[in-house]
């Protein structure tokens, strides 16, 4: 497989899926992101990202039972795949390495 890095937003979406766990589908994922980041996100951007993450093999999805309050449409649930977990850990490791040894003085804007 070619190297496929994680973008910042992709990381956020993967982490939201991890937080929501079993009930992870579009609506709670968006809520989770907005709650944790404290900022509004474009819902469509999350859905486009979910589709891209699935193409990359980081998540998988399945359709739930259709319900009347959804106009007869089922929910698309998603869950993390091992590749997704690995990508998240790798992203965290890289970030931690970059943070390691940094002193507050180094972050002062010059």
């Amino acid at each position, binding site marked *: 497989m070619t190297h496929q890095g994680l973008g910042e937003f992709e990381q956020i979406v993967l982490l939201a899926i991890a937080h929501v766990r079993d009930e992870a*589908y*579009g*609506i709670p994922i968006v809520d989770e992101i907005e709650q944790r980041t404290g900022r509004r996100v*474009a*819902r*469509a*951007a999350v*859905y*486009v990202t979910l*589709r*891209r993450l699935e193409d990359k093999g980081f998540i998988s999805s399945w*359709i739930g039972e*259709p319900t*009347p*309050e*959804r*106009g*007869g*449409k*089922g*929910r*698309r649930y998603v869950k993390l795949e091992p590749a997704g977990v690995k990508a998240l850990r790798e992203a965290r490791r890289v970030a931690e390495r970059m943070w390691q040894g940094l002193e507050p003085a180094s972050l002062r804007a010059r």
Partner: protein
Amino acid sequence: VSVAPTPPRIARAILRHALPEDACDSVDGDLHELYIAHRMARGATAAAIWYWLETLSFAVRFTIDRIIRLMLRLLGRDATPSMLDVKLGARMLAKSPGLALIGGLGMAVAVALGAGGYAVVNSYFYPELPLPEGDRVVAIGKFDTQRRTEDDRLLHDFLVWRRELRSVVDLGAFRTVKRNLVSAPGVAEAITIAEMTASGFRVARVPSLRGRALIDEDEAPGAPAVVVIGYNAWQSRFAADAAVIGRQIRIGRVIHTIVGIMPEGFGFPVNHQYWIPLRIDPRAPIAPGTGPDLDVFGRLAPGATKQSAQAELTVTAYRHAAELSPEVARLQSRIVPYTDIFLHGEVQGEAETFSVLRFMIALLLVIVATNVAVLVYARTVTRGDEIAVRTALGATRGRIVGQLFAEALVLSTLSALVGLGIVAVGLRMFDRALSDYFEGHPPFWIHSGLSLGTIAYALGLAVLAAVIVGVLPALRATGVQLRAAIGSLGSGAKARLGTTWTALIIVQIAITVAILPPAMIKAARTLRTALTESGFASGQYVVTRFEIERDAESTTAHADSVGADSARVVVNALLARLATEPGVVGATMTADEPWESRRALIEAEGAHESSQPVRVSTVDANYFPLFGVRVLAGRSFWEAAIPLGSVFATVPSGTRRSHGTPSLVWSRTFPPAPGRLVRRARE
């Protein structure tokens, strides 16, 4: 019984259309769920607005996502042509000079036609008015949709519109008049003047370079006669004299004071260099559909759109319909983009015609490019072994397609450059023709030079041609055929064109065969017309235009009538003086050039036949004798019986023709009742 609320239907349809199939149901369901929650919390309207906004957001983001995915799938990451591909492409062209020459020339001509057409159509038929917020400047006209004509006698309507319309501000009017600029006793030069309301300068939003523009007070009857001059006139006729403001000049019979100079390039309303106030006598009653020809313009009010202004104009027209005669009430009042009023596109369908023409020109490029693609494909087929070897060595399909695209791009870009050269020459010729047509002063918004837009359009055509010429054959050659090619490597098997390309060749030949005969017939007709002799010794005739200045300043019909009376006196004196000039055999006067005479419908009294289209010219009694035309039946005109304004008609040429005489065939003269006949001719 309560019905479960559903999201706005149209928005939902758009959403489902915009989403990819695999995401459609789940997103639709999620938004449905959220819509219900929003509706319960904030009400139906807020929920509907929220749903629409989300729909638009999803539509935009997923469309962009689709485009990115499509590009990646089509091209692959390694399909982007490199400089090496361009070099290889140039070498391949050098190896096939015949193909490069024929294909390149064909595409150059096609690109030249396409880009030239784009430049001409855009500059002439879809121009941008180079004024601040020029797209909000509009013209108002009255159109006869049945007869596809325009009525310019708008004085009464102008006064109504100026009083009542709120969607259009600074409503103004103008007409173009010709006068003599008398710089010294006996030295006169004919100039074109815009007789315009002061609001024209407010609409244009261009301040004067020196002095002032016209102001409303200048329009008052009895106000001092003033003139504003343009930059070019200031430079050429007044030697850029800084002290020209306040100088008095004689225009026609009236002394005018120069009050301002407009900056370089300013020619509003059309191509004018002199502006005098349009004076409308408020005391004189103006009947609808009478008075001089005027063009009316204005600027859309803040917040108003062309549609809302049109709606207000239509309501105004209905309100006054009862005051109008049936003939005038039948006319439709319309708001059109300012430049359209001069093209008469609204009534003659020229805009539509040229849209079709633009499409046909683009189609021409596709046809030519397809022809070249067939040639290129024939060559690509012969390179089947090369492509097979490269594939076997690991080159992806995208890589090979990219290289063949680069080869085609080299050819099409060279063609586009040659084509642009042809366009540049063609536009210079077009500019000259346009300048001649507008007597040296084309409308100020027409700039048909080689613009950046035209260059970009030509390069776009080059890319399109490269796609047709390079990518299509490449996709074909690297598709199913490729496996067979790899299998038959070294077997010496002959390459074949295949059914698709054979069909393409047949189609293009069919199109060529279909286009060629009409094109040849049209060319032959044009040539014949160009080579046809005029039917009289045209070298022995000279022609000049003259215009009689009105005595009165007002724009009433009475003033026109007075003008006509004074014209009779002047014309008679002029003809008498010409007759005494040495070398002049005779002279005649017509109200308009016979070859550009008015079109009209006419019917004979008591005749049962339907009205007939004719050309109408106003001529004097000397007209036929001067051209040596023998009247076939009846008699020619009597000098004393011809008041100015009489109307005579030609029957369509070829209806009756006598051998050995010029092809101008005249019908009988009408009995003396000119006013009535004029009216009937208009009808």
